């Protein structure tokens, strides 16, 4: 039963805010794809306390999503090699449009809106040539496909909006083809890169991983308010070689890997599943395979360990709270020393948690 004060606050919100805005949706702070125990794939909205604000069925397994900067609308993207994306009105908790990848393309699971919210950008595989593409969709034209441009590499995975309005794309470097499912076709020659581009696709900078890191697939990125990008990799070689997996890019001097001690590095099992920015100078990287999350402080270059089974989703809400989710339906927030559980649901949260504005 909502308290009288909350009801009044809700009414006030309806009266004075644009009705399509995020504030009117029972205050979700983050969204995530998930799988219910009955097998149904869904997209959910989470409140600051970790409760479910809404859930919308998805036709198949989702991966990540893009939240519109002002309107209460998200686009859920199917998991690689899916071809659907679903535009969801979070006010009604309903899907209002389905987007299909153009013929010959499939989605990689991530997307972002432009700063003004007019365009949606999706990472895609033009799979006959293996070329990475960024699909562009114009929202005001009912998400019509405007075109696409090069992602700057093979296997573009996460795409994010930078504070200056540019785009950053993590090109994981691994070629796949839907005919062979999720098999990796080019491990002998793979090369991953981080590409920075304008929203019209003009490449502004591109940095490849060094040859010794050739088998690292740079897939997940997040940006601090000053534009510094944190990236997380997935090692395709012998995990006991324990290469560095997390680093930063600040525009100059290429990619800088953070030095992490061998024990912490081994605990990641060669695999970072998601990265989120925390405050002005820190990142959290999660490893579902290592059942661990590491907080990297850029000031002191210290890494702190958190432990949670199958933890993957991580984001910092607009209110500044870092939230994490796992495959057991738990929602955590970071504490100084450990994770505290906010809620537990009878579902499995999928890889990514996305903050809403």
């Amino acid at each position, binding site marked *: 039963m909502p308290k009288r004060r909350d009801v009044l606050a809700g009414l006030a919100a309806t009266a004075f805010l644009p009705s399509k805005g995020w504030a009117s949706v029972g205050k979700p702070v983050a969204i995530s794809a998930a799988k219910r125990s009955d097998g149904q794939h869904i997209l959910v909205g989470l409140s600051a306390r970790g409760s479910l604000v809404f859930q919308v069925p998805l036709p198949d397994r989702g991966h990540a999503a893009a939240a519109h900067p002002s309107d209460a609308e998200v686009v859920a993207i199917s998991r690689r090699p899916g071809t659907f994306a679903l535009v969801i009105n979070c006010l009604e908790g309903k899907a209002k449009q389905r987007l299909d990848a153009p013929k010959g393309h499939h989605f990689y699971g991530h997307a972002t809106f432009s700063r003004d919210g007019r365009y949606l950008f999706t990472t895609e595989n033009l799979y006959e040539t293996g070329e990475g593409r960024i699909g562009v969709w114009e929202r005001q034209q009912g998400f019509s496909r405007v075109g696409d441009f090069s992602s700057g590499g093979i296997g573009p995975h996460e795409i994010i909006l930078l504070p200056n309005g540019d785009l950053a794309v993590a090109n994981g470097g691994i070629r796949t083809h839907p005919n062979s499912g999720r098999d990796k076709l080019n491990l002998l020659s793979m090369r991953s890169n981080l590409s920075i581009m304008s929203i019209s696709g003009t490449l502004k900078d591109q940095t490849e991983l060094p040859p010794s890191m050739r088998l690292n697939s740079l897939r997940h990125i997040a940006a601090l308010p000053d534009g510094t990008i944190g990236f997380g990799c997935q090692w395709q070689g012998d995990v006991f070689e324990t290469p560095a997996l997390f680093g930063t890019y600040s525009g100059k001097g290429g990619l800088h890997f953070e030095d992490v001690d061998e024990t912490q590095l081994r605990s990641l099992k060669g695999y970072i599943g998601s990265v989120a920015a925390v405050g002005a100078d820190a990142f959290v990287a999660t490893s579902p395979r290592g059942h661990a999350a590491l907080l990297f402080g850029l000031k002191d270059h210290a890494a702190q360990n958190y432990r949670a089974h199958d933890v993957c989703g991580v984001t910092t809400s607009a209110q500044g709270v870092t939230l994490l989710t796992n495959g057991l339906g738990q929602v955590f927030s970071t504490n100084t020393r450990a994770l505290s559980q906010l809620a537990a649901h009878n579902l499995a949260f999928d*890889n990514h948690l996305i903050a809403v504005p």
Partner: protein
Amino acid sequence: MLKRFVVLLTCVATPGLADIDDVLTDHIAPGYSTLVEATAHLSNVAEETCAPEAITPAFHTAYDAWIRISHIQFGPLEDQGLALAMSFWPDPKDSTGKAIARLTRFADPIVNAPDQFGEVSAAAQGFTALERLLYDPQPDAEYACKFVRAVAEGLSRKAMALESAWPAFADRMTTAGASGNARFQSDEEVNRALYTALSTGLEFLHDQRLGRPLGSFERPRPRRAEARRSERSLRHIVLTLNALEDLTTTFFDGDLSETKAAFAAAKERAASLDDPALAGVANPVERIRVEALQRTVNDIRNAVNEEIGKPLGITAGFNSLDGD
């Protein structure tokens, strides 16, 4: 220490098919107490002699004790970050060789300072380092002797630190869900930790202890076998099978007929191999028998999943398996 450990546990009942108390009292506590005794003895022997052949019996006993309990990767071992400092393997970059060479080249006196020795590279601290020092020719015998003493004493100290931290951790396991217990929110989480120790132990046996030396048919890798210098490779496989079987039967009270049969088959295959360092992986005929052993380990994994994982409602991680 062990006595207090037992007293703490007697009043706690675990409902259902899994028996957490039994695992603590009959599997983990004796495992650590044996490790403490064996490493203390090893350290004493190393104090008395510098002759590698005089130290190796105690080395074997202590290494056995470690392999018997090393599958319990959660708890104090994880909290104190000591897993690699006990044993650094697999080691594809030869961190062990490099760390030993570096300390030896500079005759670093840190080997004379037991309180500081825990600060050296983890690769120079464990059984893997000790094996090198005892079985590989050392350029500076006098330094190697001090080094062996430092590693042996360090192992003894680590074993004691782990054992003394276990009662408090065991208490967390048996009071899962109680207010103030941030480590375990429910019995399911404890079951999951134990099941993960079992399944990860089997995976490590299959993929690393067997898979690493097997390599591929075209390219077998006998020099990648664990502890091949001391010819303990097969012994580790047998010890692991016994330890994981003991964990399985202590932990789970339901029907284990498939699992037990698979363990018996694997142990029989391992016993029939007369190949302590697994050098035979490079011989097409002998190799077939090692591959057959590896397949039986896979049978154990499947049986454990069916007979323990499913009844306990534990499935592989949704995100861990994703690969994106």
